[in-house]
């Protein structure tokens, strides 16, 4: 049913209907409303889950690791410095192949301190072996949680997942969201059946020591699982579409890109503003389109190559910077298009909550048309 609600509340409801058995989280702006709401739901007996209060994000994800290893469906949420504090545990969760799902309310990293949005936090953890989904709006933010659990727990995959949505821009926005019912969610997402778990009656070791004779193979298997996740995402996304009318089978989604000369690539809530800008530019006769990356890990290199082989130029928008190199998405898109001749130009923008307007997107398209790119966009002139 369509209802108007805050993004964080919509996500909390989706998490509740996913029936997590263990939740461990530490509050941090702008993620706080999600975990506050879930804590209320547990306290009010609306959600039959163990809510573990912890003293840090490191402990939050460690508790999820243990609970998941014991066979529970587990959930956490964090952002920014909180995610940074989880760095070590993130690698352990994925290396132990535990399907924890965690919401990231994307926020900039300090220093300097910023509570506002960019995607430096989750993008910086691109190598930690978790699936990474990014939501354009709060509808996607809620739906992607069901997809994330389904894919993460698929025995062909068994990997944890980040569901990322832009802090404040989505987390604190009231807008209409079509919420599924508990019955709907139960039909799509059956209870978690672990392939193996910690069990005192049938003991096993998990997360053991790997000698140089075996470590390489563990990493290979991890990478293979991530590659298999593509099929699992397509399958789960298609099934979701057949059940509820919103198809998430594609890892990338085009908007007016089929006949575009300039393709913009973006991630997250920026895609909405880009779509409005594209409509205005199309009216003015410019052939511009968008390719939205919904799933950043596994990286949809083949899908990007297939979707963009015809375009004259690609403008990649990055709300992150790999300092000393470029925006991470631009680097990977250029790699995906290796051997193609069109320029792939990167623009780092919107860091630390700097607003991005329709006029900015139009300016970037003009820059791309004149071959200027691989730069920060929207800097104050005094630093130039």
């Amino acid at each position, binding site marked *: 049913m369509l209802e*108007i609600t*805050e993004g964080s509340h919509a996500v909390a409801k989706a998490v509740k209907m996913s029936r997590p058995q263990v939740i461990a989280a530490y509050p941090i*702006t702008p993620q706080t409303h999600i975990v506050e709401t879930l804590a209320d739901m547990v306290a009010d007996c609306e959600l039959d889950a163990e809510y573990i209060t912890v003293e840090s994000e490191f402990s939050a994800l460690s508790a999820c690791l243990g609970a998941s290893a014991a066979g529970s469906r587990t959930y956490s949420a964090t952002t920014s410095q909180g995610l940074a504090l989880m760095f070590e545990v993130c690698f352990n969760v994925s290396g132990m192949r535990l399907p924890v799902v965690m919401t990231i309310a994307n926020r900039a990293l300090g220093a300097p301190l910023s*509570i506002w949005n960019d995607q430096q936090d989750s993008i910086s953890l691109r190598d930690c072996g978790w699936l990474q989904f990014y939501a354009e*709006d709060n509808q996607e933010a809620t739906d992607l949680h069901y997809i994330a659990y389904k894919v993460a727990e698929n025995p062909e995959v068994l990997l944890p997942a980040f569901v990322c949505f*832009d802090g*404040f*821009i989505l987390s*604190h*926005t*009231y*807008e*209409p969201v079509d919420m599924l019912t508990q019955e709907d969610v139960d039909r799509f997402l059956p209870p978690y059946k672990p392939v193996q778990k910690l069990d005192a009656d049938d003991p096993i070791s998990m997360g053991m020591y790997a000698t140089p004779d075996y470590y390489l193979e563990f990493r290979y298997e991890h990478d293979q699982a991530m590659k298999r996740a593509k099929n699992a995402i397509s399958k789960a996304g298609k099934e979701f579409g057949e059940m509820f009318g919103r198809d998430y089978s594609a890892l990338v989604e085009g908007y007016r890109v089929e006949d575009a000369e300039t393709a913009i690539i973006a991630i997250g*809530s*920026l*895609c*909405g*503003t880009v*779509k*409005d800008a594209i409509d205005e530019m199309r009216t003015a006769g410019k052939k511009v389109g968008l390719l939205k990356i919904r799933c950043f890990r596994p990286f949809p290199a083949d899908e990007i190559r297939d979707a963009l082989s015809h375009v004259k130029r690609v403008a990649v928008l990055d709300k992150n910077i790999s300092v000393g190199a470029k925006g991470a998405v631009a680097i990977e898109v250029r790699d995906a298009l290796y051997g193609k001749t069109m320029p792939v130009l990167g623009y780092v923008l919107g860091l630390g909550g700097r*607003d*991005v*307007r*329709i006029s900015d997107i139009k300016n970037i398209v003009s820059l791309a048309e004149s071959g200027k790119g691989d730069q920060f966009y929207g800097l104050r002139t005094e630093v130039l």
Partner: protein
Amino acid sequence: MRELRIHGRGGQGSVTAAELIAVAAFEGGVYAQAFPAFGVERRGAPVQAFVRFNDHTIRLRSQVYEPDYIIVQDSTLIRDVNVFLGVKPGGIVIVNSGKKVDASVPAGVKLITIDATSIALEVLGLPITNTTLMGAFAAASGEIKFSALENALRHRFPGELAEKNIRAAKKAYEIVKGDA
């Protein structure tokens, strides 16, 4: 698409006002989007909150620069912030003030002043003016029905607190309707 920008100070309930206006608009079949822009998260600091109203899905995520409507919860902000910036011709500006506002709005923009602080003090016993100004907004803009505003307030606040806020909103609604 129509856009509203609310200027207030931390603690005055600007974000709540934006949310409740969006909820009320949604009840009327409008696609609404409400979101905040915090400066620093503390009482007294300037805060903005935004609402968009549309007849179909809203994709735009930037802040509001050319509003159709502006609400100013605290007239002392006028000294520090250009609260009228970008207002569209034909737009409506509602300022909470018991005195004549010492600022000129752009030509073609309607300025409504209402002493929301006095109404809030009288009805609520607190100088929190967001719900009073929501009543003024409903009357001035026609974007939301007063009955939808009542429902939104009852959904957000418990029992007598909701009724008090509705009375404050109603008072402002009737003053602005009466002036129109």
